[in-house]
């Protein structure tokens, strides 16, 4: 049989969204969601590298027990800024603002998001927040930890708290506008025939993410505003010396920041659903359960913030309620992992790079999620709170989970976005390097944490050195591994093999249009009569020797 990748690949149509109009103004004033996604892609990558440099500095310092590479004040700024940049300027926008913006209209068969100008505004707001934060970093930095606990941040820190807070405040509106756009789009702009239960799971998880963005981000906005207000006006909001309550700050802060971690991981789970289904050519097992588990995670995620306050002399009964709910929120995630695994049973698995990232996600997210249970358990959390165990736990979810999904999704949809294929060999190699480097970096931190190594220490007792050396070695491998895709993605934009409209031969709506797509996405509005992951024609249920013909042409 003739292999699919025949060399008679038709060139993409002459006019697509990239070359439709030229000039800086056509990009900076675009209303096209695909161009906005690329604008975000560039800025997010920029911030990722800044955050990554901070990470490198941390791991370099921690190679030795003494604080000999950086002064303590500098180190404190470095870990603070690593957290702020990575969380607010990379992780939270990453998948929704790049892949979500690009794909949501395409996956539902629409020409654009509901509010294209608000979409562009959200990018400018993101940039404005980023510029103000970078100004704060360059002017002298901020050293409060990304958690800004009071009264240190209101009264004792001499760093650029207000400027950074302002940057975060403004950046939050980018999140809110994106979420608002997604919710309205998914509700009102689905193509005829696309019922909720026919939507790809990528849309379900972005819908759930958008709910959190819209409900949670305003709370951090007012919290950061009140923090800045207190610092400037010297009124007693969070500082007990002025009559305020420092634990109130923690409640307000975590009320957003816990759901925020679900903003970071839910989109990635949506990508994984796409990758697992499409690279094993099988409908996601238990589609309905996976879809609703996203909503359950969003809802439960708002009820558990108190588990960050277990050691703050919180009432023991409040602690028990938050502990119980924190265990409950793990269940929907477990359901997803089981369903993804079951999907692979008797499927047809391709070893392409996106699938490798998806498999890595499932393993690493299992570890990350289950170590979260250690922290949900009250007695163990008392010991582990503020140690490296917590650091390892959240990096397993954020890097081993969210970042893997982001990279997997980028690889998967790269032909659609750019019209080019990335080099598959290098893709698989870098996926492997990243996987190995990541585990070497963070696995030792679990052990160091239980042994008692606290967080945010720039000098530590010598008995922890062995773990730190392993961790820093892993970090260098991880950093190297992440440079490779950065290079070959850029390389592929000029030298990569041209991709056809549907290079993976998949039924999703986004593959039913050219790669790269024309500005209006679809020549005509599709009418959807099939489920999200329908690979085989309904009449034939055996293994077939041919793809559905319509997958071969647009």
């Amino acid at each position, binding site marked *: 049989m003739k292999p699919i990748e025949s060399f008679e690949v038709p060139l993409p149509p002459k006019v697509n969204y990239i070359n439709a109009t030229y000039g800086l103004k056509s990009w900076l004033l675009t209303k096209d969601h695909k161009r906005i996604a690329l604008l975000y892609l560039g800025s997010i990558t920029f911030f990722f590298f800044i955050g990554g440099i901070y990470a490198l500095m941390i791991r370099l310092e921690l190679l030795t027990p003494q604080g000999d590479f950086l002064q303590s004040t500098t180190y404190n700024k470095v870990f603070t800024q690593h957290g702020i940049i990575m969380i607010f300027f990379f992780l939270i926008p990453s998948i929704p603002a790049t892949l979500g913006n690009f794909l949501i209209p395409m996956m539902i068969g629409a020409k654009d998001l509901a509010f294209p100008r608000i979409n562009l505004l959200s990018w400018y707001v993101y940039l404005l927040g980023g510029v103000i934060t970078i100004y704060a970093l360059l002017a002298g930095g901020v050293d409060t930890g990304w958690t800004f606990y009071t009264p240190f941040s209101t009264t004792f820190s001499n760093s650029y708290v207000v400027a950074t807070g302002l940057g975060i405040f403004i950046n939050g509106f980018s999140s809110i506008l994106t979420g608002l756009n997604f919710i309205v789009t998914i509700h009102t702009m689905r193509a005829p025939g696309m019922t909720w239960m026919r939507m790809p799971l990528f849309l379900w998880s972005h819908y759930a993410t958008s709910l959190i963005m819209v409900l949670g981000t305003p709370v951090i906005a007012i919290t950061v505003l009140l923090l800045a207000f207190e610092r400037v006006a010297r009124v007693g909001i969070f500082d007990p010396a002025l009559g305020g309550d420092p634990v109130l700050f923690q409640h307000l802060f975590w009320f957003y920041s816990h759901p925020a971690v679900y903003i970071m991981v839910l989109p990635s789970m949506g990508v994984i659903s796409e990758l697992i289904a499409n690279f094993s050519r099988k409908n996601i097992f238990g589609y309905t359960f996976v879809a609703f588990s996203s909503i359950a995670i969003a809802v439960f995620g708002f009820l558990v913030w108190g588990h960050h306050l277990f050691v*703050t002399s919180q009432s023991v009964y409040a602690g028990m309620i938050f502990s119980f709910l924190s265990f409950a929120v793990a269940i929907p995630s477990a359901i997803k992992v089981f369903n993804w695994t079951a999907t692979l049973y008797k499927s047809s698995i391709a070893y392409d790079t996106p699938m490798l990232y998806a498999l890595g996600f499932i393993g690493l997210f299992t570890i990350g999620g289950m170590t979260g249970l250690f922290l949900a358990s009250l007695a163990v959390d008392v010991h582990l709170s503020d140690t490296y165990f917590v650091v390892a736990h959240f990096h397993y979810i954020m890097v081993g989970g969210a970042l893997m999904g982001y990279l997997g999704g980028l690889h998967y949809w790269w032909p659609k976005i750019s019209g080019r294929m990335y080099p598959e060999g290098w893709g698989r190699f870098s996926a492997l390097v990243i996987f190995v480097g990541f585990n070497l970096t963070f696995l030792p931190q679990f052990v160091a944490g239980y042994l008692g190594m606290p967080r945010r220490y720039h000098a530590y007792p010598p008995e922890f050195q062995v773990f730190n050396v392993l961790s820093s070695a892993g970090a260098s491998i991880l950093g190297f591994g992440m440079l490779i895709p950065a290079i070959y993605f850029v390389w592929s934009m000029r030298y990569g093999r041209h991709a056809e409209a549907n290079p993976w031969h998949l039924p999703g709506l986004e593959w039913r249009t050219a790669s790269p797509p024309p500005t209006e996405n679809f020549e005509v509005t599709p009418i959807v009569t099939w489920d999200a992951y329908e690979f085989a024609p309904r009449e034939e249920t055996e293994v077939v020797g041919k793809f559905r013909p319509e997958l071969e042409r647009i």
Partner: protein
Amino acid sequence: MQGWIPLVPDSASSFSWKVDALYFYLSGITLFFTLLISTVLIFFVIRYRRRTPYEIPRPVEGSHKLETIWTIIPFVIAMTMFGWGARVYFDQYKPPDNAIEVYVVGKQWMWKLQHATGQREINELHVPVNRKIKLIMTTEDVIHDFFVPAFRTKADVIPGRYTTLWFEATKPGRYHLFCAEYCGMNHSGMTGSVIVMEQREFDDWLSGNVGSTTPAAAGQQLYQTLGCASCHGANGEGGRGPTLAGIFGTEQQLQSGQKVTVNEGYIRESITNPQAKLVMGFGPIMPTFQGQVSEDQLVQLIAYIKSLRAGGETTPTVAASPSPTARPGASPTRNIR
């Protein structure tokens, strides 16, 4: 678990083995599910790899039965984890009544400790083995956290209020004390040791270190010099102000109709913000001492008031006096990590 690379710290308190047992249970379950998922994944990935380019596997919708099973079982397991953790935590939370009290004041970047018998320490805490120790803690500036990994316990210290932590050390030795809440420039340097000694050696240490007055005695002096006696009586018997003798631990009725329990936090608030919770029957005439007394002095005043029994006599607080169960011929303290 001591060996070339240890997995758990020293077990030196009555909590340690309980927390470790739960930790091993959690680790076991985590390892089990990680291995299970990974093995199944690897098996599927090899067994069901794509063999021909065009193959399309038979689609499957799902199975309600499987969904139910893999929802219920993880939920039950999660509930065992919750229940066990809550149980151990509940015991850990409330300090026992007859514990030896030590006052702790954290500040950037050191720990100041004072025993009820007057010994002061900086960044070190000497305690006798097998006795219940209760720490009453606050901070002068920002939030810190008193963390002793070997005891598997920690608690935040929060400005403007008192938090408590209790433990019973079970093994003599020297154990790390860390600050576990980021507090600024020298957060990594705010470390020290908890030194657990056999009772006899502890008594020797106590007698070799008497220099300062006990907190209660210092508090008594402050009580006179700050003029508390003019309204509350020379021995706390009352007058224009409420009676203080015997008041600690009781419930009082406030002007507003609410009730309040007289604990360290209430006394501290009454000194720094007297009008906030006025006791029924008294006018708002007490001046505030906010800014005029340091955290250390507040701790001393509280210790004094605690020592006042009804009738105006003072009782020594539960001090680290020789324990009736001291074993003769106890081994000298070893400096174990």
